[in-house]
């Protein structure tokens, strides 16, 4: 699939300069179709590039400058000094570690629970609609609103979870704080995972399951030997999306702990440097580092696990 995408990208520039003449001339209709295709895509492309590509290039530039909003007269090009400052700072490494921990744990648990949820939704004879309906509630809820719910639930003497588990202010400790953040993430994102996996589950042919059962395979064996391998594409796509989404975690931490007590994620760190320290240069450097981290994760997934990026095979369908 990726080769398919590559050939197209490689072909385009080659085609442009002189070879056009030698190709069979396009019919009037084909040329009109091309033009229409480009015209229809142009507005979307322009908006997407204007909001992402241009700011990212600008962020690269900002990250090479000493630029503090409190000292507007001392803006100066300083090369990679901001990156040096960030990469030698313990805050960056702690934030990166916290983010990686939250991502790994929450994605792993979400995958397991999402699979269970998908199985519950798939296997149940009655109440199937009810489960799906109920599980859409966490999906639809505004993350910030849900985060406040968790925050108050864990507030000592006021919250039911704090009372139930006899916890005294878990949000003020690093370890427990991260635990609460992960819990909030899992609650919010499991339904999405479950729905994606349910759609993958319904692509597994029932006949195969029956045949395996006749051959004496246990339910556990059937799950690992038939269901999971056949669902692999759906699982990997869901994992890729969840991992990248979780890596940018911001809302839950912002409300639950404000990133205090060593619960800061990389996004919170970047935000803090921008809006509390007003240091655009450092903030931009952190943003670029996050961008690179996300790119690395995506490349690992796509190359390493062979995740088919959704939509890339549309040409051949």
């Amino acid at each position, binding site marked *: 699939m990726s080769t398919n995408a590559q050939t*197209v990208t490689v072909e385009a520039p080659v085609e442009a300069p002189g070879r056009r003449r030698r190709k069979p001339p396009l019919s009037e209709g084909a040329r009109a179709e091309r033009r229409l295709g480009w015209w229809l*895509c142009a*507005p979307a492309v322009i908006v997407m590039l204007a909001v992402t590509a241009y700011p990212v290039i600008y962020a690269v530039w900002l990250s090479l400058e000493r630029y503090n909003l409190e000292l507007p007269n001392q803006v100066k090009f300083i090369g990679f000094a901001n990156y040096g400052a960030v990469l030698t700072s313990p805050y960056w490494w702690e934030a990166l570690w916290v983010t990686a921990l939250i991502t790994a744990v929450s994605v792993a648990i979400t995958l397991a629970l999402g699979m269970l949820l998908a199985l519950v939704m798939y296997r149940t004879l009655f109440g199937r609609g009810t489960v799906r309906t109920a599980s859409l509630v966490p999906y639809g809820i505004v993350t910030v609103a849900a985060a406040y719910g968790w925050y108050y639930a864990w507030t000592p003497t006021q919250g039911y979870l704090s009372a139930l588990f006899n916890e005294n202010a878990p949000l003020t400790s690093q370890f427990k704080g991260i635990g609460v953040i992960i819990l909030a993430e899992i609650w919010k994102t499991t339904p999405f995972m479950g729905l994606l996996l349910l759609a993958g589950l319904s692509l597994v042919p029932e006949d195969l399951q029956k045949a395996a059962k006749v051959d004496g395979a246990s339910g556990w064996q059937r799950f690992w030997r038939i269901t999971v391998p056949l669902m692999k594409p759906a699982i990997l796509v869901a994992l890729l999306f969840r991992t990248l989404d979780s890596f940018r975690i911001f*809302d839950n931490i912002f409300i639950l702990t404000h990133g205090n007590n060593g619960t800061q994620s990389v996004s919170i760190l970047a935000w803090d440097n921008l809006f509390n320290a007003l240091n655009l240069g450092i903030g931009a450097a952190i943003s670029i580092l996050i*961008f690179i981290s996300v790119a690395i994760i995506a490349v690992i997934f796509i190359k390493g696990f062979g995740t088919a990026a959704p939509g890339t*095979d549309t040409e051949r369908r």
Partner: protein
Amino acid sequence: MAAISTTPRQKLGWGAANVFVIALALIPVLWMISLSFKTPTAITASSCSKQSGFFQCFFPAQWTWGNYSQILKTATFVRPLLNSIGIGLIATFISVALASMAAYAIARLRFPGKQVLIGMALLIAMFPIIALVTPMFTIERALGLFNTWPGLIIPYVAFGLPLGIYTLSAFFREIPWELEKAAKVDGATPFQAFIRVIAPLAAPGMVTTAILVFLASWNEFLLAISLTSTISARTAPASLAYLSGSSQFTVPTGPIAAAAVVITIPIIIFVLFFQRRIVAGLTSGAVKG
């Protein structure tokens, strides 16, 4: 549906699993609702300890509408609520319009650069939004877009587009395109065929996409707190964070809970009402790849 035979005992097991899932999904929401009906004194009265009963802690002793009437009287919340609705609707409308055009081209037309466009949309769907905050903050202040509706609408459109292009191109592939040919035979231009014949058929997919894009912008928080500074453009989720800072001496738990319920309940009703469409839309792009 389940073709593998189930014994009554297994049925009971799955039934129990159902109840468990439903409880897990709903209890945190019920907690927020119940909190929003508690009086300020009840909230701070330390009603929750290991000794106090669970129900005594969870549900209000006396119910009050006070928190709701308080927040619905202050511009700190009402104005952001209106901003959220306006920004969300405009961003959704523009996203769906632009995404339908691109998705139509992807699903129907042959033109070079299609794969590049799909790859680009995928990249943007995975984009770490924080990487945009610093440059957008600077750019928007320079252009006078900071703390305005367009200042939020433009990025929301951009992030709605990949979602829209994926969902819509999946829907568009299912449309009976012979009708388009028939229209062309009858003398319609490709553009007329798009507007007159295909657009009405595509409406269900567009509604689904609109719902997903609206939910995404309604939910968005990071850009909303970063690119606004006053209630003139701040959205509802961002205003929650400011309700908490508004009074120094009393913790405004009740008002925040009420505000959280106000911005959540309509969305939940909306989601439940359109659940089939939402599930179809969420899974359309992801699984087929």
